[in-house]
């Protein structure tokens, strides 16, 4: 199994939207390498013909009656948000400034 490099950990952190510090990268890269080295042995045991288990209790197509039900009160939900404006969540800009 491949080991995990510091650069790979930095890439994964960016994918996971974690602005990790250089010091964290050093620590995590070493620890993740040890963890991956240990968990990689799952690859040694399961043959191709073994089906995967995604859920311990097999249930499929669980539906509820299509009935109108009250949702959470808007003002209560927005009161718990980091920023709200005009009855909506206020988000930081999502587009780059035009150069």
């Amino acid at each position: 199994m491949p080991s995990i490099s510091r650069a790979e950990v930095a890439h994964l952190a960016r994918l996971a939207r974690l602005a990790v510090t250089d010091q964290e990268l050093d620590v995590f890269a070493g620890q993740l390498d040890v963890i991956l080295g240990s968990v990689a042995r799952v690859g040694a045991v399961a043959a191709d013909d073994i089906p995967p288990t995604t859920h311990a209790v097999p249930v499929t197509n669980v539906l509820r009656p299509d009935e109108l039900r009250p949702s959470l009160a808007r003002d209560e939900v927005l009161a718990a948000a980091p920023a709200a404006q005009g009855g909506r969540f206020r988000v930081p800009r999502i587009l780059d400034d035009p150069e």
Partner: protein
Amino acid sequence: MTDLTGMTAAVLAGEIAAGHASSVEVTQAHLDRITAVDDKIHAFLYVDADGALAAARAVDERRAAGEALGPLAGVPLAMKDVVVTRGLPTTSGSKILEGWIPPYDATVTTRVRQAGIVMLGKTNMDEFAMGSSTENSAYGPTRNPWDLARVPGGSSGGSSAAVSAYEAPLGIGTDTGGSIRQPAAVTGLVGHKPTYGGVSRYGLIAFSSSLDQAGPLTRTVLDAALLHEAIGGHDPADSTSIDAPVPAVVAAARDGAHADLSGLKVGVVRELSGDGYEPGVLDVFAATVRLLTDLGATITEVSCPHFGYALPAYYLIAPSECSSNLARFDAVRYGLRVGDDGVRGLEEVMSLTREAGFGAEVKRRVILGTYALSSGYYDAYYGQAQKVRTLISRDFAAAFETCDVLISPTTPTVAFPLGARIDDPMAMYAADLCTLPASLAGTPAISVPCGLSEGLPVGLQVMASALADDRCYRVAAAVEAALADRDGRPILAAAASL
């Protein structure tokens, strides 16, 4: 400890129903106990004295009006902070949710309230339930009432410490890889992980959705069964909830208390022993096997050859699911937002918020899960782990063809010292060695105190097939009764007084 805080939940409910004590008196006694000892223990993140007394008064008024009360009405409870509670701060042990007041109740919370159970407050936990010591809490560790220099287990260590320190007779925990059973074992309590789907996950802040399950942490098997029946059962709000009656766990606990297991076939799992297990723990376990024989059970050794792969499979599946679940902490809808200066964009604000709001173990698992799910590695890691899950379920199925229950120690060691494993993730993960197979298979398992090693409690784990939770309770109650008969007192009575 006053008389009221020393009583079991079942006895307290009886005293309240008979009018010998009011729920307000019982609740106040526990609030006083929290005031007296929680500085040392740090079991609670939030104590809701006013809300608890108001709920207690409501129960007392209903009784005075002649209403029939439920079997736990008026009895106080410590709620793990991963369970959402309307109007009460809920952090899941994380800074990213500091100060958040949920606008709704989890189904577990709703059922606790409907049963007339009095919520004293919210208990400490490893951040997002990731850990085995409660040291990963963003709000500081909880201490084990048996020895303040040791951990109370985790992730439900706040609830285990609160109940074993007599701050509450009932506790709610959640168990993803052992987070109810392991804290129960190392604090001398009873803890049960129900069959997956037996208790609604609606309103549990999700860690690993295919594994998470809420359940009771109590001082007696009967109390655990009573709480299990109060919170269990089908819930349309959770699509993985099982649409079947709650197993008859209270009847099983009462039946087991006769300490007669004649005809019961018990399998000892060969793979849950050996290297990494403390000799003192194995000695207590061996004595418990002899005890079960004395109670009439037939003991056989069984082999579950894939249980040795449960730990690697778990530490791929749980981080994978958590990396997806924790994406909801996006600095938009609830919780922390860092760096929103009007100049930075959403992605940068999100990254700064998650960096500031998550602790080291959460970041480690999110990165690991992101890796295991990424293109090129998915088949080798996540896919293989899911196949191992199938193999573990097949091991259980084969063992249950010849055995009614399987047993093992709950943990390889007694409670370890604070700080001993915090810098070594693999050593911390090993605390879950015995509890992981039942988590991956979705089957029920209970931990019941079965003795002491070096003066610290050891737990017996009893595992049964899906929906046979009642078997766990029956065997646990028999062990509890036989040991109380032998020792003349419960195991928890050996704990240090605070």
